[in-house]
């Protein structure tokens, strides 16, 4: 599929979802169960991306000390818990990875 078509379709779907209930208001009631399920979308999707990126750097599960990414990722998790600051979390994780790469 052409990259521009991908953007166009992805954009239309995103816009459609943003408009969905604004448009349907009064015409349709969102089911309770769907309302509840939507809350789990961000943590589920984000974790599904984070885990392989951090734990499978070379497409293979690697929890050894040779894999700097899980250690840097853990650093980011701790900084996120401690500071609740997005920018600091990213900077701390990146700094940890650079230091580990430089040192080992």
């Amino acid at each position, binding site marked *: 599929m052409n990259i521009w078509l991908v953007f166009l379709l*992805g954009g239309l779907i995103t816009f459609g*979802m943003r408009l969905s209930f604004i448009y349907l208001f009064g015409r349709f009631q969102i089911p309770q169960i769907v309302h509840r*399920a939507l809350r*789990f*979308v961000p943590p*589920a999707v984000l974790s599904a991306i984070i885990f392989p990126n951090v734990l499978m750097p070379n497409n293979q599960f690697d929890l050894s000390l040779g894999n700097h990414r899980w250690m840097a*990722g853990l650093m980011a998790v701790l900084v996120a818990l401690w500071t*609740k600051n997005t920018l600091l979390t990213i900077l701390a994780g990146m700094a940890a990875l650079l230091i580990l790469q430089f040192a080992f």
Partner: protein
Amino acid sequence: MNQKSSMFWAGVRAEFPLLIGVFPFGLIYGALALNAGLSPAAAQMMSSIVFAGSSQFVTAQLIHDAAPGLVIVLTIAVVNLRHMLYSASVAEYVKDLSMKWKVLLAYFLTDECYAATIIHYEEDGMKPTSHWFFLGAGFSLWFIWQVSSALGIFLGTAIPQSWPLDFALPLTFIAMVMPVLKDFPVVAAALSAGLVALLAFSLPFKLGLILAAFVGILVGTILENRKSPGGAL
């Protein structure tokens, strides 16, 4: 200053702290998108057409991994599903607006715009000019997103390839997911999705990601319903 423009600027002011966090996001996005092999024009257009940060990061990653177009579109849909919840949440506040306004505000309905706007509606109630606040919050975010993406695209080529810039993606997601993990069902949803993503990693077309997301959503929903059986269905 008339009512409409003072409401608009109130929206911009309310959005301001969020803009500070969004700016580096946009920079990273621009640089990552080029790194993933997108052309500068394509990277910028994605910021205007899709206009949804996390799904743009994921799309850049999928293009880098040469995933098929249909899988990318499906992934964008899954990643942005939460916007339906925002739509449901603001619907009653914009119900009396014209269709033109509804369409315009829906385009601007991102995470950060929603966050500032819903607080305003809940505190101030619905006024005849409230939608100008929504527009102020949404437009300022849109503007900063376009500018920061462009700057990231511009600077992106100056960043050496050996820098592990791609690691900014999982780091950004870690920063976004950690504040959400407030109760057991959410933590269980995140962990089960992560585990399935590892186990199903070798599935073709990045389908493991979508499978993992659905398992996580299912686990979270089931656990929550068990916690409060009275509210189930």
